[in-house]
């Protein structure tokens, strides 16, 4: 900011000097100035038209009444309106033919995946592999049936809940806790059950266990132990165990019984969403 000097071209310099290099002080173009003014005017107008100035509780609302939440609501409404037709088709569709309609099937799977991620992953896991007590939806073992109608019914009414009178319901007796069987009898029946699926077991106790099984368990789990889907009684001869197939876990299961609960999603979600998530679960790899 020292005294301005002039060089041989007659152009004033800023007076700064860096290693002998000086800077010309040429004027800026006037259109640039006008552009700058226009930007200021635009900025002021924008801050009046749109939310801008921070106040104590919230920013000024702006004359146009724009808000990102409002924009989101509009976008969601627009998306729903755009999907309304296919949603009504999905809601009234015959479940067994959805797979034959490529467009509807793709929509149902995508929508079902979104529904699943919102409501189902808390218990069944993001990859649908389930957890102890929460069934794996990828395998081919189904408690209440694995065709799409059975899956839809399970989702729609839930299991052992008190909200829906049509909920799937069955109850295993707590054989130990209610003293229906003695500890030895329970040990016997567990050894028998483990023998059904070829797990390591005490062969000496199998004969006694088989007798108890026939009396106490076969009514639900059927005589050969393959279970009964009408009652949600699991197949005891396969490799899939909901709570675990080791000796200690089975003792606990027989002693205290198990009674998992699933909400009746039909009371919370629309028909299209139920059908969508049923389609999604059915195509995960275990659907029948």
């Amino acid at each position, binding site marked *: 900011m020292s005294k*301005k000097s002039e060089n041989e071209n007659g152009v*004033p310099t800023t007076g700064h000097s860096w290693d002998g290099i000086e800077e010309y*002080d040429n*004027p*800026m*173009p*006037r*259109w*640039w*100035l006008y552009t700058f003014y226009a930007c200021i005017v635009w900025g002021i107008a924008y801050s009046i038209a749109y939310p801008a100035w921070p106040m104590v509780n919230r920013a000024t609302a702006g004359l146009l009444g724009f808000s990102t939440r409002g924009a989101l609501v509009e976008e969601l409404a627009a998306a729903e309106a755009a999907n309304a037709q296919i949603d009504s088709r999905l809601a009234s569709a015959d479940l067994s033919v959805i797979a034959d309609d490529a467009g509807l099937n793709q929509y149902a799977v995508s929508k079902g995946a979104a529904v699943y991620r919102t409501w189902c992953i808390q218990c069944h*896991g*993001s*990859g649908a*592999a389930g957890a102890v007590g929460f069934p*794996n939806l*990828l*395998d*081919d*073992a189904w408690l209440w049936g694995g065709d799409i109608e059975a899956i839809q019914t399970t989702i729609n009414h839930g299991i052992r809940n008190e909200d829906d009178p049509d909920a799937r319901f069955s109850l295993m007796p707590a054989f130990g806790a209610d003293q229906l069987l003695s500890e030895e009898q329970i040990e016997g029946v567990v050894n028998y059950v483990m023998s059904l699926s070829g797990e390591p077991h005490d062969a000496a106790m199998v004969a006694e266990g088989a007798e108890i099984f026939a009396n106490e368990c076969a009514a639900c789990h059927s005589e050969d132990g393959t279970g009964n889907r009408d009652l949600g009684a699991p*197949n005891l001869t*396969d*490799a*899939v165990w909901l709570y675990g197939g080791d000796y200690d876990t089975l003792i606990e299961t027989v002693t205290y019984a198990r009674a998992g609960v699933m909400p009746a999603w039909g009371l919370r979600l629309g028909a299209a969403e139920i059908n969508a998530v049923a389609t999604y679960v059915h*195509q995960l*790899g275990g659907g029948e």
Partner: protein
Amino acid sequence: MSTSDDTPPNLYAAREPIFPKRVSGRFRNLKWIIMLLTLGVYYITPWFRWDRGPELPSQAVLVDLANRRFFFFFIEIWPHEFYFVAGLLIMAGLGLFLFTSALGRVWCGYTCPQTVWTDLFILVERWVEGDRNARLRLHRQQKMDVRKIRLRMTKFVIWALIALATGGAWVFYFADAPTLLWDLLTLQAHPVAYSTVFLLTATTFVFGGMMREQVCIYMCPWPRIQAAMMDEDTITVAYREWRGEPRGKHRKKADADEAPLGDCIDCNACVNVCPMGIDIRDGQQLECITCALCIDACDEMMEKIGKPRGLIDYMALTDEQHERSGQAKIPVWKHIFRLRTILYTSLWAAVGLGLTVALFIRPDLSVTVAPIRNPVYVTMSDGTIRNSYDVRLRNKHGEDRPFQISIETDDQLKVVAEGAEDALVLVPADSTKLQRVYIMAAPGSAAATSAVTDVRIWVEDTVSKERAGKDTVFNGKAE
């Protein structure tokens, strides 16, 4: 608004209007040819047709953003092949390095859209309002009489039409040109098409008609970057001061007392034709786009007065010392062919060759495999261990093709494609299909009980017998 010694200079100055005079000569002719070529390519390209079958668009050059495809005559680029575009950008970069180090701001002078359209707009201006002197008179005329209004309006309307054609041509690269033209004319086109046309029409009009050299001097970063790539052998437009000075009007009979004059007759022809409004005799300046019109103007004058051409000429910095010391001019090709430019050319050619080879060896089918890791495996009711894979199958043919999926592994594994019999998957024409594939290991088998087994998934086009494979792994239930 005075600028005496004790008041600071104005911070802002109005643009000095420039009225470039008509000029003819070899560089002007070269510029006409380049203008014709570049504008022709720009306006006509979207209208070329190219038959790709009924499933695909029939426009030769098409950037299909909605379907994520780029069509260029016989070439079709998919999004995952975007490296071709990156390669082209690298080539463009190296090409600019090459041309800048060899020929300076030749891009600015001849091929930059700003230069080409400004040239076209000045041509229109000259047709309508006359050459430099007539335009100057019209500019200085204060009274807005009928003639001035008529000339101005004619000029603006022609400019607007050129600008509209320019903005209009751009959108044809992104949609089927005849369809879009009809939609635009019948007001059925998408608002984005109209707003794009409007924006580009406005910028063409303002930049070509009003802003002109201001864009190059104040808005464009490229000249500043180019300056960093030039060296003492780079060709620029320069004035042979040692030959021209002292300048002055030549008289028939020279006074014996006066010092002999140089070749420059101070006719200002070089200044009058300059589209940037500078005097090249002041030396190399940041405004100069090296369009070489001053060379043409000066050569014409030199011929008239019977002096050799080249008072203003393309030359390099090294020429000055060379010629001042009385030596002959260094030929231009010696400036151009040197290690640096040869290196740029080789690199440019190498990238180009690599891209061409890559373009012709790329297969018409490709596959990617993403193992599903949530969960890593599923135990089926009979104890089978099952792994899932998301397999993306790309069919680049213009027709549907059945792809056979198979696996190659040391163990006894079984492969199943979800929803497809015998792992035979039909992939629609010119599309990608996401296919879930299961690989299963029997209970107790080696793969089922070991943590990791190597697997290669093969995909074969059953029609063309082309195949592609991807290595992946099978996760077992390790004890």
